[in-house]
């Protein structure tokens, strides 16, 4: 789907970079990073209010929600049921039907439980949610998620927070071939700017990341890097790269040498 903005569930977004709100050293740093990223959508987690040690500050005080769409997640949920409950609470808190649906199947890798994810997707779509499921790079699962009504496919590139980049370009390419009618948003694994560019060059529609920015030495600078990298990758995808060849091809003409 070359050209034009990212469209999720009928709504257009000017930026193809979606960023998180976790793990920043401070709200000020987060706000600066958000600004530099150009993102129009940020993920947020849903957690119990701490009744005892309530700080005066709230996350939402530091997000310009006129410009930025909130994307509540179900991070930390290990069953379809927990994820569904959390999604419902997120909708009530954010007054929006978007949800980044995570059902975690393993603590060490935070890999999704795709079977439970599928169940939760079906249930939440029925309740009117716009479901953006965090999934593996398995195209068979992706097709089922699409058939279940997911609004995008969000495959992981590598374990969340690992910074390992896209570990399986073959699977991502095959996924893109198989899913042409929904946005593909690489979610998790990006470590540095080129990782984001690679994802976009494969024809993905957007990239979602948290740790790569929040954990960088200078989060705002890394956010600016990611913004440019996503734009660069998209442009390169649309421009059409040169073919790879083993041998050289001279850039200067062979004729007219002295």
């Amino acid at each position: 789907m070359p050209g034009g903005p990212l469209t999720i569930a009928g709504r257009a977004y000017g930026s193809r970079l979606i960023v998180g709100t976790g793990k920043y050293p401070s709200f000020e740093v987060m706000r600066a990073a958000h600004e530099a990223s150009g993102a129009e959508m940020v993920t947020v987690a849903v957690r119990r209010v701490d009744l005892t040690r309530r700080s005066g500050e709230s996350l939402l005080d530091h997000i310009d929600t006129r410009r930025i769409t909130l994307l509540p997640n179900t991070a930390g949920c290990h069953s379809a049921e927990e994820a569904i409950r959390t999604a419902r609470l997120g909708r009530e808190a954010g007054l929006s039907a978007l949800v980044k649906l995570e059902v975690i199947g393993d603590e060490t890798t935070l890999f999704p439980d795709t079977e439970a994810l599928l169940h939760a997707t079906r249930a939440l779509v029925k309740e009117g949610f716009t479901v953006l499921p965090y999934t593996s790079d398995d195209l068979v699962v992706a097709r089922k998620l699409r058939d279940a009504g997911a609004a995008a496919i969000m495959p992981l590139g590598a374990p969340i927070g690992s910074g390992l980049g896209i570990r399986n370009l073959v699977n991502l390419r095959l996924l893109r071939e198989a899913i042409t009618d929904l946005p593909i948003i690489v979610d998790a694994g990006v470590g540095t700017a080129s990782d984001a560019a690679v994802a976009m060059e494969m024809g993905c529609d957007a990239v979602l990341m948290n740790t790569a920015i929040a954990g960088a030495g200078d989060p705002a600078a890394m956010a600016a890097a990611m913004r440019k990298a996503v734009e660069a990758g998209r442009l390169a995808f649309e421009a059409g790269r040169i073919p790879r060849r083993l041998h050289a091809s001279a850039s200067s003409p062979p004729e007219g040498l002295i």
Partner: protein
Amino acid sequence: MIDVTVNGEACRLEEGATLSSLLALLRLEAARLAVERNRRVVPRNDYAGTLLEDGDRIEVVAFVGGG
């Protein structure tokens, strides 16, 4: 008096307490929260009319930083 659980903590309230009064007691602003009562989300507009009962399990959540 009734005994309810709020975010996993035991909490003793007067009979007739509503979700609204509970949030007021906890000094929480309704605008940025979501509340579950016995695993069902309570719409914001129903807080005032939701009478709490003994044994109720209440979850009060908000957005925090996440990825």
